[in-house]
């Protein structure tokens, strides 16, 4: 495998191409996710289809740059259509997205099929734009992808603080005198570029997932924008290269869906196992809190009982008594066990417990704090 990757020209091209698209869409997708534009990418990628078909019909060329320009223009027009419809009518944003997505795609299909049925049409390769075909990537595609990608990322880094402000608080930015509307257009253009770079490899249908999934996964691992972007780029590259290589080396495994599954696994793993935001970590924290609360409850009850024997604070008390004092009698034994571990309580004889000196002091401190808080 590693040998193939290093020396097999096709495989190397495929892996590099898919990694490039993963890096670009992962990092720029970060902004889409943070700005609540996750589904705009879906509309843009579908809207790109008629652009690809028209670019081919008008020029007769399948050169990657020609098709990418067509796709970018159509994607842009689609975005513009969404914005215009939302601004100038009462159609909700989501309906405008859905409409642009499906109508543009339908129109693209009309063009594509009529090219296919045209006797002179040499359409082969155009329908890879539906589901993508990594194996079809060649060096010239790679050059176009890399050039556009470096350009887009360069602009994103150049306007780093402006874009951050746009995503976090655009109105405050406007109050500072920054041209937020123009920055918005610029960032959307970068998003369009990220999408068209991936169309040939992933396809219009699933491209938006490569935009959203790596960024959503990366968000779980960090609380810093820069790191989030870096991790998203890494995840994007991982999913892109992994999916593309697997697809290119396996028969009947379409590229786009394979990459999406890779990205999906990254999302699930991140959601579950990220150290701070991960669901497992959150669950463990909640359980620890519950254990602490249970301990404190039993400790307080033992303390109350001990106060009834002022002369003998270490007087033993039956578990059954403790169980009548709480709404959660089933948790008393576990609570006593963990108190014993800390050295706050000890068993005396059969099902009898008493506080240790340390336990008595701790309980007294808790009681004092509670009184202070209630005041």
């Amino acid at each position, binding site marked *: 495998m590693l040998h193939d990757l290093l020396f097999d020209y096709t495989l190397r091209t495929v892996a590099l191409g898919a990694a490039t698209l993963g890096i670009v869409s992962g990092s720029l997708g970060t902004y889409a*996710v943070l700005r*609540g*534009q*996750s*589904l705009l*990418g*879906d509309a843009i990628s*579908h809207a790109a289809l008629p652009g690809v078909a028209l670019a081919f019909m008008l020029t007769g060329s399948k050169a990657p740059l020609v098709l990418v320009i067509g796709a970018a223009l159509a994607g842009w027009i689609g975005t513009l259509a969404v914005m215009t*419809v939302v601004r*100038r*009518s*009462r*159609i*909700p944003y*989501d*309906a*405008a*997205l*859905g*409409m642009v*997505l*499906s*109508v*543009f*795609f*339908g*129109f*693209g*299909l*009309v*063009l*594509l*099929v*009529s090219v296919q*049925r045209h006797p002179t049409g040499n359409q082969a390769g155009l*329908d890879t734009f*539906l*589901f993508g075909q990594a194996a079809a990537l060649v060096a010239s595609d790679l050059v176009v992808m890399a050039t556009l990608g470096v350009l887009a990322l360069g602009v994103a880094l150049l306007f780093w603080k402006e874009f951050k402000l746009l995503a976090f608080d655009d109105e405050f930015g406007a109050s500072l005198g920054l041209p937020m509307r123009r920055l918005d257009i610029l960032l959307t253009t970068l998003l369009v570029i990220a999408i068209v770079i991936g169309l040939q490899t992933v396809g219009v*249908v*699933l491209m*938006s*997932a490569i935009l*959203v*999934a790596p*960024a*959503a996964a990366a*968000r*779980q691992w960090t609380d810093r924008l820069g790191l989030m972007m870096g991790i998203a780029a890494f995840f994007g590259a991982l999913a892109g290269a992994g999916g593309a290589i697997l697809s290119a080396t396996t028969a*009947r*495994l*379409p590229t*786009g*869906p*394979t990459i*999406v*599954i890779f990205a*999906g696994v990254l*999302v699930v793993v991140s*959601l579950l196992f990220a150290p701070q935001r991960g*669901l497992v970590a959150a669950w463990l924290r909640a359980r620890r809190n519950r254990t602490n609360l249970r301990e404190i409850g039993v400790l307080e009850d033992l303390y109350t009982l001990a106060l009834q024997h002022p002369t003998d604070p270490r007087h033993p008390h039956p578990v059954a008594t403790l169980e009548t004092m709480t709404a959660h009698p089933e948790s008393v034994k576990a609570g006593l066990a963990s108190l014993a571990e800390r050295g706050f309580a000890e068993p005396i004889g059969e099902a009898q417990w008493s506080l240790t000196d340390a336990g008595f002091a701790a309980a007294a401190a808790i009681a004092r704090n509670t009184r202070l808080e209630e005041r």
Partner: protein
Amino acid sequence: MTPAQLDIQLIAAVTAAACALPGVFLVLRRVSLMSDAISHAILPGLVLAFFVTENLASPLLIVAAAATGVLTVVLIEALSRTERVKEDAAIGIVFPILFSVGVILIARFASGVHLDVDAVLLGELAFAPFNRFEVGGVDLGPQALWVMGPILVLNLVFLAVFFKELKLSTFDAGLAAALGFAPGALHYALMTLVSVTAVGAFDAVGSILVVALMIAPPATAYLLTDRLTTMLGLSAGIGVLSAIAGYWTANLFDTSIAGAMATMAGVAFALTFAFAPERGLVAQAQRRRSQRRTFAEKMLTVHLLHHENTPQEERECRVPHLQEHLRWSPDFARLAVDAAVRDGYVLRDADRLSLTEPGRAWAQESMVD
């Protein structure tokens, strides 16, 4: 017109009407993109059911796909409830994954049989008339009609029975819940309906163009009416017209029928967006022109009222001042002053302006709005 052509148009029309009805509620409840999510995500359910039955016409396919559709909604909601992912991102993650699973299943295990990826994505109406529904050797018409017809009836019945509840929960979910209408259950019922409709329409128009038929006609109707019943009727009508226009366009240019239907639905929306009687762009522009004048007139009278009997009156209530302080162009200031004088709201003495009694009343009234 050949019988096959008639069949295709009939199937297309029934499909469009069946899609438009639940679509109205998707648009109004701002969950339009659930149609996109569901129509893609039901694929693995469909494929698995196909593996079991090995029959594309089996009703089990519809049941399985509908169940997958509901599962999609549940997954999206569960994901956004973790508060780790926003809802739009949750949609954008869940349905591509499910769809990918479906595509891979087909590519790996079902290539060569009737189910292929292009058909799922794009649909193919042209062959629909040749797939006949026969009982005991008697030809009862195209099979697709026997799928979509009952689905259309199901949608109609559902809307008729739950019309009041749907209406209330769409416009005031809080009140509906307070009245014990279980908006949650209704939401899932609607999503099930969307899933069933999407599966039925799959064959004819494919998973992406279903979205066009579900969203575009209701959105078009939304620009034409405020009444829910009218909107439902209009949506179905626009859907049917787009379908038939799409068929003949595809015929003319020898291209994809489903694609042309979606395109026509888009054209219908674009035309309405531009020319709708009240909400169209043209009507908006006309209204704005006349309102701009009325508004300017109002502003002028309010301005004069505001400065009546104040020390600044001498300075404020003059034509040049309007240009200077209200930032009006000389032309616009002249337009407003002329209109106000003509309507008898303002008296003009050289540059000095003052309110008439009706002008004063009108200005006071304007400010109450």
